[in-house]
């Protein structure tokens, strides 16, 4: 938990004057409800929650934070997985949940202007009548906010073809850590000069708060086909993924689920995936009808080379949507097995999939933990979910140890820490495994340019350099602190 609260009654009144009494929250149980996001292993309560209604209110709140040096953290729907919004040094939450309006859809220019508390799925619902969509679709799409997507540079199932969030953000309205409102980019993307939008997307709320975004909309494809292939060995599926991507095919989604996931998903969504399979692949082809037909011709021989147990094509749109709904709900469906999960998010070269998945299986066995894999195979973006019971401290310890080993196995083959969930507080202490201290220092100086007082989502992304002889902190401290079992 954070340091002593800096929020005096006077400060509270100032915030109340800006956003209204009803939208300044500090009841102890309310702060408790805010103590964690979608990763329940890490907990810290904010000193206060402010829920502004518009950019001006955000700016006024931030100005006060700047004046009194109060750390502030922007929070969307709280679906994050890396502790990106954890107030480890105290401070206030600036919740964007009320700033959830789609301000404009411009089908001619294929853009939309939204407040950043808008839920990703709402944007897609409202652009569909114009035969357009917003491409980045994280699995938490039904709940996550565009602001959160921008902070984490979120990916998703269709990003293997369409790219991640940064490829779809053209302009931003940002409240700087000093409380100024600035416009970055614009409806036509960034102009000449420094690409501020590119710099801001993925900065995890450490450069300020994006309050509005101009996003790129993409035409809906004419034809979409989804194939479901099942395999008796995880490795067979992984080998096929590598071959598909090497063949030059551009699937619009290429997702893998393992046996643990298949069972959970079948129970939650009655998807009827083969129960005896060790893995299934969901392969989606989209585009012009002729283009899809040609891609299918190219895909079929590859499938026949890779011991496919069963091949099924989604019959109609309803079945296709059920398959994707099941895929996107997979992680939550693990609740049917154990009450919590700890999820890694490394990206590895696709050629290493077989090798690393085999290692992950072995790590799970060695630590006696259940690992469920469901991931963006086409991108090489792994999501090993280690299932756990947070009330079992011994199990939590084994899970964290397994997590660290998985992470190192991924880095050993040239992988990176995170594909789409961000570094947050969870992986900051691993940054020096992939960056030199000089590189980290450049990032730190960049942060200082935007946030000289260091109040915008402090403690995130950048590690604290350990002195000589000091033992690496690893990711464990924050988590074990939450469990009350410091090492």
């Amino acid at each position, binding site marked *: 938990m954070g340091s002593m609260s800096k929020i005096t009654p006077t400060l509270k009144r100032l915030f109340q004057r800006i956003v209204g009494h*009803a*939208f300044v*929250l500090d*009841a*102890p*149980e*309310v702060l*408790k*409800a*805010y103590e*964690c*996001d*979608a990763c*329940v292993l890490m907990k810290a309560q904010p000193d206060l*929650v402010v*829920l502004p209604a518009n950019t001006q209110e955000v700016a006024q709140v931030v100005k006060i934070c700047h004046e009194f040096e109060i750390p502030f953290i922007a929070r969307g*729907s*709280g*679906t994050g997985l890396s502790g990106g919004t954890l107030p480890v040094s105290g401070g206030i939450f600036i*919740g964007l*949940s*009320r700033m*959830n309006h789609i301000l404009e859809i411009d089908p001619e220019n294929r853009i939309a202007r939204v407040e950043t508390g808008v*839920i990703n*799925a*709402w944007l897609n*619902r409202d652009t569909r009548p114009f035969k357009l969509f917003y491409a980045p679709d994280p699995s*938490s799409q*039904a*709940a*996550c906010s565009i602001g959160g997507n921008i902070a984490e540079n979120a990916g998703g199932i269709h990003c293997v073809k369409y790219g991640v969030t940064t490829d779809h953000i053209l302009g931003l309205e940002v409240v700087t850590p000093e409380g100024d409102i600035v416009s970055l980019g614009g409806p036509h993307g960034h102009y000449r000069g420094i690409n501020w939008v590119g710099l801001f997307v993925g900065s995890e709320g450490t450069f300020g708060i994006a309050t509005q975004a101009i996003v790129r909309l993409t035409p809906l494809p004419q034809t979409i086909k989804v194939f479901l292939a099942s395999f008796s060995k995880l490795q067979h599926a992984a080998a096929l993924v590598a071959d598909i991507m090497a063949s030059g095919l551009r699937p619009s989604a290429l997702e893998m689920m393992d046996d643990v996931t298949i069972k959970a998903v079948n*129970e*939650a*969504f009655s998807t009827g995936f083969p129960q005896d399979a060790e893995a299934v692949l969901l392969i989606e082809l989209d585009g012009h009808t002729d283009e899809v037909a040609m891609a299918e011709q190219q895909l079929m021989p590859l499938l026949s080379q890779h011991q496919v147990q069963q091949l099924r094509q989604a019959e109609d749109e309803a079945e296709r949507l059920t398959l994707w709904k099941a895929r996107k*709900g*997979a*992680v*939550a*469906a*693990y*609740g*049917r097995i154990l*009450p*919590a*999960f700890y999820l890694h998010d490394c990206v590895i070269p696709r050629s290493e999939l077989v090798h690393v998945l085999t290692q992950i299986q072995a790590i799970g066995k060695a630590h006696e933990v259940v690992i469920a894999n469901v991931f963006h195979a086409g991108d090489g973006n792994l999501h090993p979910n280690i299932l756990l*019971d947070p009330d079992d401290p011994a199990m939590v310890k084994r899970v964290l140890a397994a997590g660290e080993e998985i992470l190192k196995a991924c880095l050993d083959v040239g992988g990176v820490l995170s594909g789409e969930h961000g570094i947050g507080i969870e992986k900051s202490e691993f940054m020096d495994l992939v960056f030199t201290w000089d590189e980290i220092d450049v990032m730190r100086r960049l942060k200082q340019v935007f946030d000289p007082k260091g109040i915008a989502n402090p403690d995130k992304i950048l590690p604290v350099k350990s002195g000589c002889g000091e033992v690496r902190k690893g990711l464990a401290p924050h988590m074990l602190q939450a469990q009350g079992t410091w090492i």
Partner: protein
Amino acid sequence: MESHNPPLQSLGQPNAFDALSACIHCGMCLPACPTYRVTGSEAESPRGRLYLMRASVEGQLAEPKQLMDHLDLCLGCLGCQTACPSGVNYEALLMQSRQKLVQYQNPVKRWIRRLLLKQVLPRPFILNGFAKVLRLYQISGLQRLVRNLQLPKLLGPLGKQERFMPQIPEGKPISLGQVFGVNQRGRVALFTGCIMNAVYHRVHQATIAVLVANGYEVVIPEQTCCGALAHHSGERDIVESLAKQNLDKLLAANPDWIVVNAAGCGSTLKEYDHILEALPEGRVFSEKVIDVMALLAKRPLAEPLDPVSDRVTYHAACHLHHAQRVQQEPYEVLKQIPGLTLIPLTEAEMCCGSAGVYNLAHPDLSLAILQEKMGHVEKTQADIVLAANPGCMLQLETGIAQSSIAMDVMHPIEILAKAYRDQ
């Protein structure tokens, strides 16, 4: 935090709250929750409420009030349960918590509420008599006078509640003990409910006409209040006693189905198997309960159907869509009516803010939720908005009265009755 008075842990079976562990804290329920949408607060979201229930069970909350405040604001719409990929039984957890928390409520308020639930709602003559007085107030011009004089504003909070006052139509509630039609396809007992019969007896007339046209014999047995309001307030003894009476009276009519046209009543009647878990007949009863639209969807509608040229949109009542999971059936039935234009309603399955007497208990929040609903309703430009629950119908009428649009509110069965009007 120090625990002084753990409100849940020490009460009931130790495992009663095991279902909490199914919540994996993913947050998928947040956008499906009307109170989260309006307040923006995590503590007014399903995930937040479950988290606080758990905190309470573990003795981490100092006062029962810290849980009660947030559970009180829950509409019980169960939109979260439909959204949850992990299968959390939110409804059961909410009911268990409320049953344990009633003892901490203000005793005077609780006494008054129990009196209403026990002595007023189960006595149709009081409610119907009250409706008559209300109608007199409305047709005499007194209501217009009161509203023109801005008296509701002077009444403070009570004035806000005046807005939710139902418009009482002409005609009489259906009397119990009648039989209609001939048994060709089955014998059904019609559950009349309290508000539906007092305010929307026309819906019962439509229900009887459509069922008779479709070959059902319709009986209206003696019965009492379904107990929904008592159930949702956690007053277990009252709901048990009402359930027992309904079970005896309705089963005595020997029906194939117990047909309900009020989603809220239907959902409670379907739960009698849990409410009366000691009685084996509870299950028999619950299995016979069916919403009228679900019954009609079981086979093609009887011909001939006259064309109905209305432009309608359908609001999915929470206790039909989320609680009873009757989701596609109303559309399937309505689509069979020739000439009818069915305009899709965005977020049709979001709560309208009625939720039993929620609009009276929390008028501001209820109106804010209604406002979101009305935004979508207005965009359809339909002539009629359909809802299969009297609470929703009243709420939507309030929403329309406050806006500039002209739209009628009907039960879907009334549109069907139009297609059978010449028979």
